[in-house]
């Protein structure tokens, strides 16, 4: 053969990387187009609601004394008829003052319900806590917020307005912003990252394929669907991603509740950025690493669960989405590592790459592409498209993104180790609050 082994590695890396980058170009354009669509007349959607349905808001809390008070108040102050919603906080085995604070708050808010779960029943993680809350829920719709969230006043109205109008929607997902973004460089990076994720991946996928993923907070979902699915999967580390896939699958299989038109089309999860919540992001790298490791391991779990069932997945677009996840974690990551190795061996002069082409130009273009796509995403939020953020994005490529590589490798290692040792326990992976 005329190609050296390094040529093959290089081609593999080049093709994998550029398939992903090209896909993201389309996502970024679509994300921008969705933004234009949503923000032309934001009020119109609200006027479509004629009757407000009853909604149960679930907030799982495990040692949240620092934030729970503010969260409850923010939820209670949302612009939604007081008699049309209840807030259930599941106080799961808190050993701090969470219970006391909630008791205090109950004096002010009649529609605040507190479920206190104690060992041995409790302490089994977020999914278990949500399922516990679901049992007591009276609402036709269930909304979920994390205990550190401060939703904007209109958030719930937007979520409800969106879901009631379209029976095909199983769930509507709002946008989350970073409350403590100005704290330090890490929170600034996270702020940019969350905007990039939501405007490119979530908005882009919604616009292109009507797919998005439940991110764990600030979403509304039909209770009927949750009931039929048996609630959240208590075994999954990231119960939200897992739930998303099951929702898409279920809608396809059986749906008798609605008209025949919907039957066979399946349910959708809509990303709807007008519903906004502000959440607290990690302020130290250690906390960041812990939280993200959990996410990545959750994704590895999902990939592991569904990858070999890809062909049996009814909705091909979902199979494609899982494949995309797989590509990010396996193809893209391995390609990045390979291309780093090739780059180093080129520098050391020990490479025997025979392929030629404008590869350096492509590398520079990939970098510019990253910067401009993220800049577009960030710029969709008023005031975020400033020079400081653009410079941060330029820096992110070499710092924050590289930390992700490390993080992902570490998560793979941990998942592999656990699998070897047969550990499967799910418990609270709680993110430390500030």
């Amino acid at each position: 053969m005329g190609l050296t082994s390094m040529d093959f590695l290089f081609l593999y890396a080049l093709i994998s990387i550029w398939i992903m980058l090209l896909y993201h170009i389309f996502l970024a354009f679509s994300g921008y187009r969705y933004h234009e669509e949503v923000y032309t007349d934001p009020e119109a959607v609200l006027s479509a609601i004629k009757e407000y349905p009853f909604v149960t808001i679930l907030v799982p809390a495990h040692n949240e004394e620092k934030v729970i008070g503010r969260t409850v108040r923010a939820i209670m102050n949302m612009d939604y008829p007081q008699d049309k919603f209840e807030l259930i906080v599941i106080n799961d085995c808190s050993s701090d003052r969470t219970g006391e604070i909630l008791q205090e708050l109950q004096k002010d808010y009649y529609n605040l319900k507190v479920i206190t779960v104690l060992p041995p029943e409790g302490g089994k993680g977020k999914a278990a806590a949500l399922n516990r809350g679901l049992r007591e829920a009276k609402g036709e719709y269930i909304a979920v917020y994390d205990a550190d969230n401060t939703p904007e006043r209109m958030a719930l109205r937007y979520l409800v307005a969106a879901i009631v109008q379209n029976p095909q929607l199983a769930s509507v997902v709002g946008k989350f912003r970073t409350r403590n973004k100005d704290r330090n460089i890490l929170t600034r990076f996270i702020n940019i990252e969350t905007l990039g994720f939501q405007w490119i991946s979530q908005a882009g996928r919604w616009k292109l394929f009507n797919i998005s993923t439940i991110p764990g907070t600030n979403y509304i979902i039909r209770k009927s669907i949750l009931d039929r699915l048996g609630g959240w999967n208590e075994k999954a580390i990231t119960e939200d991603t897992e739930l998303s896939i099951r929702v898409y699958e279920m809608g396809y299989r059986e749906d008798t509740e609605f008209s025949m038109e919907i039957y066979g089309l399946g349910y959708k999860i809509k990303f709807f950025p007008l519903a906004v919540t502000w959440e607290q992001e990690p302020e130290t790298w250690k906390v960041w690493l812990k939280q993200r490791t959990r996410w990545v391991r959750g994704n590895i779990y999902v990939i592991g669960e569904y990858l070999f069932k890809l062909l049996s997945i009814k909705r091909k677009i979902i199979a494609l989405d899982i494949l995309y996840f797989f590509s990010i974690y396996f193809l893209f990551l391995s390609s990045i590592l390979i291309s780093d190795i090739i780059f180093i061996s080129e520098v050391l002069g020990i490479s025997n790459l025979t392929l030629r082409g404008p590869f350096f130009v492509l590398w520079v273009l990939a970098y510019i592409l990253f910067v401009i796509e993220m800049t577009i995403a960030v710029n969709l939020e008023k005031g975020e498209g400033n020079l400081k953020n653009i410079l941060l994005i330029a820096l992110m490529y070499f710092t924050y993104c590289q930390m992700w590589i490390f993080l992902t490798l570490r998560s793979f290692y941990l998942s592999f180790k656990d699998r070897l040792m047969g550990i499967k326990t799910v418990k609270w992976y709680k993110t430390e609050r500030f």
Partner: protein
Amino acid sequence: MKRAAFLLVFIILMTILLTGLNVASLQGESLKPILVVYDNPNLLSRDHSGLLNDFSVIFSEQLGHFNTEVDVVLENEYKDGMLEGYQYIFYLSLREKYSVNRALLKDIAETARPVVWYGEGIEELLNANQNIHLKFRGRSKTYHLVEYNEKVFNLGQNAGINLLLEPLSEEVVVYGKVSDGKRVYPLMANWKNYWFMSGLDTSGVKYLVFSDVLHEIFGEYHSEYRKVYLRIEDVSPISSPKNLMEIADYLYSKKIPFIIVLIPAYINPETGVEASITDKPEVIEAVRYMVERGGTVVLHGYTHQHYKEETGEGFEFWDAFEDRPLNVNYADYVGERVLKGIEICLENGLYPLAFEPPHYAMAQDGYRELKKYFSTVIGQLQTTDRRFASVPLPYEVRDTKRFNRFLPESLGYVELDGSYGVENILNNAGKLLIVRDAVTGVFFHPFMDMEYLEQIVEGLESMGYVFADLGKEDNWVRIGEHYIRSIEGNILYEGPLLKKEKTKSGVKEEEKKSAFHRSVEIIATFLAVFVGVNILRFIIIFFKVKKRQKKILFKEREL
């Protein structure tokens, strides 16, 4: 302040990444600066076959075997302190009866740098620096025995002049000895930073000893590995395909790689009609057959003739009648001939990887041109334009004034009349074993009896020579729009002359390979353009959104 610091980090990161690609070229061992002073440009050294060469050229090219950077200066142009800045001083002195340049003598007598004194005038230095533990005992032509590394060579009548040096203490290290059967003197002697070469030999056994001892002088200890490049010489449109294929079969069965020295065109001396291998499909087929069996094509000129001589007989880059350079502009002439030769090869799916000047004859201007087009030149070195003569070097040299890479030939060939036979070749090879990492060549004409080839191959193998494969080494040829490169045993070609015709495996694969490489390049270029266009679209979107946000902001203020 904080912002400035982080901006700085960002800029540094970018610079490192952007310059990273150039780092590779900065690596490699540093070169030793060397000053070569020689006594007289008009004095050409006479080698064993009576040919005349400019020894300073042989010598400075030879130093390309080591990590050196050579400056040459004439003795009478030497000025006080000129040796400053050099790591080694070489003084080449082949002329008797004169006095050494005073400034040079003084500098050499006082310096602590390594000095290599080659030949005449040693007694003057020993006078100028009486600390040196050597005594000059005169000159003699009768010291015909040379001993080196426990081997003795008898030079007989051709002993040559030897300067007799007597070591005065144990501090003198002796490399090689000369003897007249009674008395023994050092061939080379080293005392502290001084090295002396006492034999006035520029090509024979004594010179080979000197060539080997250079490894000690420079402290570069190369491997004990002697290579020979076997060439099938003067393959041309009039060669017999049958002979060529027989040779290929034999060498293939012995797993011996070889070089096909190809003359791609032929001009009939009587009719003046030009014929190229293109007109001889059976020859092309035979050459491809050879390539598939371990042969590597080397271009041997275009027609191997300039005047109306027989192809393979005539000189192409030298006026053999007047014994002077051709009356042409070498800058154009060499390029034209090489381009024509390369293109005929390419048209026929053959990929030359090096050049061998016909008869090794090349004007000095011609070398300069060849260096532009070929990574590798094989054969012998012509040192001067004053008359034709060529010399081999004992080993491979790189990055010298004349060559990127030069692979010398010194063993010879079997002549048609048998005047220079296998015995001579093996005799030369035996002498060359003196040099620890000798590189040489041997060649064979396809019309000769195969038996000679078998004898040569077996003889060299039994002496421990390794048959080197030029095609497995990195070479390149670049001329006009054509770029041929060999890397890891693969031959890559870039350029307009991709062979499309159905051919046999080996050659065809190379073409596919190149086609694949080209399509990767084209796709990558398309990708770059596509991405560039999309980046522009993104930038437009960015400013569009910015502008609108500003408008909304004003509206909000007005409200």
